[in-house]
C-alpha cells in the first residue's frame, strides 16, 4: 500500500500538467472553452481571488485544497500545482543528465525568506490589490511562461511542419499567425523560468519552500495534517536513502525528523526506504512516540534571495523606464509626421471585467485569456493600467479586435476578473468608445474612399456619411459602439490611425442597433 502513493502521484500529476499546459497552447481551440474553468478549478490563488470577487460554488476550489492539505499535507504542490510539477520534470531530467550521482541532502528551512514572500503576497491582498500575489502565484507564473514562451514555440513547430507540407502541396495543416512578442511579459517569464530551472535542477523544490507564497501558506496548514510522513526511529538505520530522494530537503537524519511544513507530498521517500521505516500515517497514531519537531532557525542576517528580489524590482523599473524612453522618442519622431498621435485616456479591459478597478483588483495575470482569445485581441500590458496592473491583459486593437459573437475570455477566466457573459449581454457590453480623428482619415487627407472601419463595425456605430466630392466619411454613433476595436484594427492609416477606441473606466451598456426589416425584394424581371 505504501508504495502506491508515488506512482499514483506521478500519473495524476502528469495528467494535470498536460491538461493545464494544453489549455495555454491550444491555438486551434480543440478543447471547448467551457472546460477551462473545470481544469483550473483547484488552482489555489485564482480560486481565492474568485472567492473574493464572486464567491459561490464556482470559487470553492481553494476550500477543497485547504481540506486536502488538512488531510494529506501539501499534496497540492505535487499533484495540482503546474509549476510544481514542471519543477519535478526539470529535476527528473537534471538527474538523468548529471554525470555525478545526484543526491539531495537535508537543508535548513529558510524561514525569513519564505515568510517575507508570503507577506508580500498576502498583505497587499488585504488592501484589495492582487498584483503582487499574482506575480508570485505559481499557477499564474506557469500561465505566463506557457503563454509567452511555450505558445510561440508550439506555434512555430506547427508552422514549420505546415510550411514543409505546403512545399509539397499539402494544405491540410495551416500555419498560424504569431502574435508579436510582448517584451515585458517575455522577460518576466524568462526570469521566472530561469529561476525555476536553476533551483529545480540543483535543489529540487527549494523554490516552493522559499519564493512560493502558496507553498509557504499551505506549509503552515500542513503542520496540522491528519496524515503525515514519519520516521520510525526503532527500525530506521539512518541509511539516508529517504533524505537523498527528498526534493524538499526536509528529512533530517540527525534527529530522524521530517519538517512536514516543507514536505510537498511527493512520496519519493516512501519508495526509497527499504525497511519501511519511513511511513505515511495518521499523525496522532499511538505508534508515534516522537512528536514532530519543527525545526526553527534564527533569522539569517543577510538574505540573498531578498537581494535578488530587490535587484529584480530595480531591473523591472529600469526596464519600464527604458520602455517609457522608447515611447517618448517614438512620440518625438511622430511630431514630424502630419498625423495626430492617438492619446488614449484609458485602456480597454476585456468585456465582462466590470471596470478597470474590478479588473485590476482581481486579475492575477495568468494570461489564460491571452492564450484563449481566438482573435489575439487580448495582450499582456506593460504600464497601460499603471504599475498596479503590470502584465495584466488589455484589449489591443492593433493586435486584433474583439469578435462580436465570442464570449471566450469570460468563460475561461479562473479568477473572476473577467466575469462570464451570455452572448446577448456581451453584444451590448461597452468596453470603450470609438473616436474618429478626421485629420488622419484618408478620405480627408487623400480625397479617396476607404471605409475600412465602417466595413468591420459589427453594430454600425461607425457609419459613412456624405462628404465632399461624392465621397463618404466615417462618423461614430457612441451609444451603439461596444468598443470591440474592429475599426481601429482595420484602419489603414499609419503611424497614427484615424479611428481608435478609448477605454471606459466602468463598462457600460450600449444601445442595441435598430433593426428595420428590409422589403422583400423578389425579382419579377431582370433590370437589364
Amino acid at each position, binding site marked *: 500500500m505504501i508504495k502506491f502513493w508515488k506512482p499514483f502521484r506521478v500519473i495524476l500529476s502528469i495528467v494535470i500538467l498536460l491538461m493545464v499546459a494544453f489549455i495555454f497552447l491550444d491555438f486551434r481551440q480543440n478543447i471547448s472553452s467551457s472546460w477551462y474553468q473545470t481544469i483550473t478549478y483547484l488552482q489555489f490563488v485564482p480560486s481565492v481571488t474568485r472567492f473574493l470577487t464572486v464567491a459561490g460554488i464556482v470559487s470553492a476550489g481553494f476550500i477543497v485544497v485547504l481540506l486536502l492539505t488538512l488531510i494529506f499535507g501539501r499534496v497540492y504542490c505535487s499533484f495540482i500545482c503546474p509549476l510544481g510539477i514542471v519543477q519535478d520534470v526539470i529535476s527528473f531530467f537534471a538527474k538523468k543528465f548529471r554525470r555525478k550521482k545526484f543526491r539531495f541532502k537535508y537543508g535548513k528551512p529558510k524561514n525569513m525568506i519564505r515568510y517575507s514572500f508570503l507577506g508580500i503576497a498576502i498583505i497587499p491582498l488585504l488592501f484589495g490589490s492582487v498584483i503582487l500575489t499574482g506575480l508570485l502565484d505559481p499557477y499564474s507564473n506557469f500561465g505566463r511562461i506557457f503563454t509567452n514562451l511555450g505558445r510561440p514555440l508550439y506555434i512555430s513547430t506547427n508552422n514549420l511542419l505546415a510550411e514543409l507540407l505546403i512545399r509539397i502541396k499539402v494544405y491540410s495543416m495551416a500555419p498560424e499567425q504569431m502574435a508579436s512578442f510582448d517584451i515585458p511579459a517575455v522577460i518576466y517569464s524568462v526570469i521566472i523560468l530561469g529561476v525555476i530551472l536553476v533551483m529545480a535542477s540543483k535543489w529540487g523544490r527549494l523554490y516552493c519552500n522559499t519564493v512560493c507564497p502558496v507553498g509557504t501558506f499551505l506549509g503552515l496548514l500542513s503542520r496540522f495534517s491528519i496524515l503525515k510522513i514519519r520516521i520510525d526511529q526503532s527500525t530506521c538505520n539512518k541509511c539516508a536513502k529517504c533524505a537523498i530522494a527528498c526534493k524538499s530537503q526536509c528529512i533530517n537524519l540527525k534527529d530522524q525528523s521530517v519538517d512536514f511544513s516543507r514536505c510537498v507530498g511527493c512520496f519519493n521517500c516512501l519508495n526509497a526506504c527499504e525497511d519501511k521505516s519511513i511511513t505515511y500515517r495518521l499523525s496522532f497514531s499511538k505508534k508515534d512516540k516522537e512528536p514532530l519537531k519543527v525545526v526553527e532557525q534564527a533569522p539569517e542576517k543577510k538574505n540573498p534571495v531578498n537581494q535578488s528580489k530587490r535587484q529584480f524590482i530595480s531591473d523591472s523599473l529600469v526596464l519600464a523606464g527604458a520602455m517609457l524612453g522608447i515611447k517618448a522618442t517614438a512620440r518625438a519622431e511622430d511630431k514630424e509626421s502630419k498625423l495626430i498621435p492617438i492619446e488614449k485616456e484609458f485602456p480597454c479591459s476585456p468585456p465582462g471585467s466590470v471596470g478597470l478597478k474590478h479588473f485590476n483588483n482581481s486579475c492575477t495575470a495568468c494570461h489564460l485569456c491571452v492564450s484563449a482569445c481566438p482573435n489575439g485581441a487580448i495582450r499582456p500590458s506593460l504600464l497601460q493600467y499603471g504599475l498596479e496592473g503590470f502584465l495584466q491583459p488589455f484589449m489591443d486593437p492593433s493586435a486584433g479586435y474583439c469578435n462580436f*459573437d465570442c464570449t471566450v475570455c469570460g468563460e475561461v477566466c479562473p479568477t473572476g476578473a473577467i466575469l462570464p457573459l451570455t452572448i446577448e449581454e456581451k453584444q451590448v457590453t461597452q468596453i470603450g468608445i470609438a473616436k474618429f480623428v478626421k485629420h488622419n482619415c484618408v478620405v480627408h487627407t487623400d480625397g479617396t*474612399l476607404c471605409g475600412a472601419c465602417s466595413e468591420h463595425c459589427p453594430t454600425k456605430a461607425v457609419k459613412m456619411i456624405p462628404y465632399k466630392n461624392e465621397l463618404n466619411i466615417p462618423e461614430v454613433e457612441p451609444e451603439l459602439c461596444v468598443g470591440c476595436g474592429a475599426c481601429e484594427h482595420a484602419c489603414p492609416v499609419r503611424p497614427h490611425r484615424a479611428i481608435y477606441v478609448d477605454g471606459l473606466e466602468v463598462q457600460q451598456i450600449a444601445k442595441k442597433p435598430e433593426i428595420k426589416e428590409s422589403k422583400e425584394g423578389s425579382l419579377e424581371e431582370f433590370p437589364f
Partner: protein
Amino acid sequence: MKRRDFIYKGIGAGVLTSVGFHSELLGSVLPGKTFGLASPYDMVAIRGGEAEVMFEKAIASLGGMKAFVKPNQTVVVKPNIGWDSVPEKAADTNPKLVARIVEHCLRAGAKEVYVFDNTCDNWQKCYANSGIEKAVKDAGGKIVTGKSESMYQEVELKNAKILKTTKVHELIMSCDVFINVPVLKHHHSTTVTAAMKNMMGVVWDRGYWHRNDLPQCIADFPTFRKPDLNILDAYKVMKKNGPRGVSVEDTITLKAQLISTDIVAIDAAAIKLFGAEPSSIAYMGKAVELGLGTMDLDSLNINRLTI
C-alpha cells in the same frame, strides 16, 4: 494559367476594348477559356430557384463545367468567406452553391479543387460559421487557409495604375482555372461589392488598397489575373449595413444568380440587380479604362432564365 494564355488574353482584352470587338469573337480566338466554343452567350442570368439549382441550370446552358475545367487541372474556387457570420445573414457566399460548384469541377475531371479566402474576421470561425468549410469538404474540395503570409508571393502588375506590386496567394498563381464566386452585397464604402471587389481576398495586404485609392486598386488587380469564370450569388442580398451586416433583416431574398467570364460585365449586371447604376460605382469606369471588360450590357448576349 499558362504564361502564353495570359499574354494572349491580355492582348485580346486590349483589342476588345480598343476596337470594340464583341467578346464572342474573343472567345473564338482563345479556345477553352471563354464560352466561345460551347455557348453563344456572354452571360447567363437566372432567377427564381435555390442557389444550387439555379447554378445547375445556368452552367448547363453554357455547356456545363467541362467547358471551363479540363481533366487533371487544378481549380481554385474563391467564394467570399470574409466574415464570421451565418449563411442567413448572407455576408458570405451561399455554402450550397459553393459545394455544387466544387462537385461540378470534380465531375469535369479536376485534379484538385481548392477553396480559400483571406478573411477579415478570424479565418477558422469564418470558414466554420459560414458553413463553407463543411460544404466544401463534403463535396470533395480542399479548404486552404488564406491567413498565412508565407503563402503569398510578391507580383508585379505592369498594367496597373496604382497597385504596381502586391502579394498574391500562391494558389492563384499556380492554378489552371480560377473561379470567382462572390456574393452580391451592400458595401459602406464602395456602395456595392460583387465580383471585382471579391478579388481583395486573394491578396495579402488589403490595407494598402484602402490607403491608396481603393477603387483604382480594385480595378487594377484583375490586370494581373482575371478569373476564368465568375459566378455571382444573389440568392440572398444584403441591402444595407454591408459588407458585414448587423442582422438577418439587412437582407432580401432575391433568388438570382449571374455567370460570366467578363468580370466587368457581371459586376455591371450585379449592380443593376442591387438597384444602383453601374456608372455611379467608382471602380467600374476605371476597370473599363483598363480594358478589363465592358459595362455596356445591351451589347452583350445575355441568356435570361427563370425557374
